């Protein structure tokens, strides 16, 4: 980033001086509001929260499954229990308290999840591909994900969009989305639900039935590409947008401050 601000903005528009992984981080950051408490995951979610906190959401409170409340890491953590999340936090809770008093009691607004499979109702599988008792791939399992999906008000899903990841129905529900639709979720007594799915192709949201639709396309992506990698006929918004591109400041934060070693993002020059 050697050019001045005005020039770079122009270049960005025309030459795409950012990557889709950078765009994913930025799109996720923009979902956050300053008074949110966010249950942060590692990788892109952590970058997204830190971009948001350093731009439009300075009061954002970052909470980790390890029980650190109001963490303020100086460098991006490699795990959700790093010492830099504990040092300088506002509070550290035993693990049970974090889940019991914070998550279950509805004190967390936003949670970030990934997953090996996401279906048309936003249900997530991070447990097994294939049969539970004789798996083709044994995945790590829920961890905190199931109850995050149950209890935060807005679940954000960040994942690359590949064909395998978007089947019509997941092999195993690890974490509930809208189950069989918004009513299915409500019948279980759950509020909230998935708010957005952010992939390398676009930003998707959920319609009144609780079904996934494409809300904005990334500049590099096409409708056909998304449809061809999705296991059902996916809906597109009538007023389908183009995802807003990263600003220079957002890119600078990612590249210089938050992920200089490109652990979680591929970075453009």
């Amino acid at each position: 980033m050697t050019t001045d601000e005005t020039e770079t903005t122009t270049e960005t528009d025309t030459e795409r001086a950012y990557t889709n992984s950078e765009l994913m981080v930025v799109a996720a950051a923009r979902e956050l509001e300053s008074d949110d408490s966010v249950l942060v995951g590692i990788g892109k979610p952590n970058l997204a929260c830190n971009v948001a906190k350093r731009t439009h959401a300075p009061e954002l409170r970052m909470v980790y499954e390890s029980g650190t409340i109001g963490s303020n890491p100086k460098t991006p953590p490699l795990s959700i229990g790093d010492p830099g999340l504990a040092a300088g936090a506002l509070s550290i809770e035993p693990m049970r308290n974090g889940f019991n008093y914070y998550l279950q009691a509805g004190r967390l607004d936003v949670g970030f999840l990934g997953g090996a499979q996401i279906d048309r109702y936003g249900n997530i599988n991070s447990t097994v591909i294939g049969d539970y008792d004789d798996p083709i791939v044994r995945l790590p399992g829920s961890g905190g994900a199931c109850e995050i999906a149950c209890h935060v008000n807005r679940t954000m899903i960040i994942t690359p969009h590949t064909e395998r990841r978007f089947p019509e129905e997941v092999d195993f529900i690890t974490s509930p989305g809208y189950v069989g639709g918004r009513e299915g979720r409500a019948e279980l007594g759950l509020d909230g639900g998935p708010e957005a799915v952010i992939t390398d192709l676009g930003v998707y949201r959920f319609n009144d039935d609780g079904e996934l639709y494409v809300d904005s396309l990334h500049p590099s992506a096409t409708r056909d590409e998304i449809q061809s990698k999705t296991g059902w006929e996916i809906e597109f918004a009538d007023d389908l947008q183009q995802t807003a591109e990263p600003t220079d400041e957002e890119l600078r934060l990612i590249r210089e401050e938050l992920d200089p070693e490109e652990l979680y993002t591929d970075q453009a020059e």
Partner: protein
Amino acid sequence: MSKVTSMHDAVATAVDDGDSLYLAGFTHLIPFAAGHEIIRQGRTDLELIRATPDLIYDQLIAAGCARKVTFSWAGNPGVGSLPAFRRAAEEGYPTEIELEEYTHFGMIAALEAGASNLPFMPLRGFIGSDLPDHNDNIARVESPFGDDYVYAVAPIEPDVAVVRAQRADENGNAHLWGIQGEVKLAALAADTVILSVEEQCSEETIRSDPNRTVITADEVDHVVVEPYGSHPSYAQGYYGRDNEAYLSWAETAADRDTVEEWLDEWVYGVDDRREYVEQLGTERIFDLEPETAYATPVNMGEYR
């Protein structure tokens, strides 16, 4: 009477073949040295219980110690999957392992039931998930007050827990700061407890700050003083996480042979944690040390 002993003797006394075991510590203060000693002593048929099996259980599984893994997230934190766990789960190598699976919250609630001597613990968890269909220790329970329901989990009560803390007195009263995880619950829920610490301190030090005490002597059977006993995990204020070790485990464990070589070099090839640390070398250890940042003091007062 002092309970201080060596990790060798603590493991030899406390851990039998077939035991259920909880090596506690959520990312922080993971008892790696204890895990390695259990491998060295050749224990088999263990039920390995841990929310996050992490590298420590991947190593025990690779060494053939496991018959069952009870867990809620079996990955390499921030890196990817656990190769030895997957080989055992998918191919039955080197041993078949039975899996008992929870969510983090469900696992912790089960430990809470064990720690509390309760027959079950309710939680608003597992809702809409397929997990309860695959675990008989998860059941739906109706509320006795009004129209509402929860899931309940049965207690987890390990035969042995190994927990770590920064400092403890000779009886096992321990101060632990930073991330607390499920350490206290594991110590309370288990029949036998090995407490390993970075430093031994006086009872007076413990009594100077009783709010910092996470484990009391009542729960503890053996105290082991073992600096760097959590490497490559960390001890808040003493040393940081050795991320390099976590990152390289993906390659080390990807292959049956390379993991054997690793075990030979870092577990079977050393007698104890002291030799392990020597093999790591001073520079690597020094690189992990944080700058000092003391907590603002508090006055407990002296009341006569």
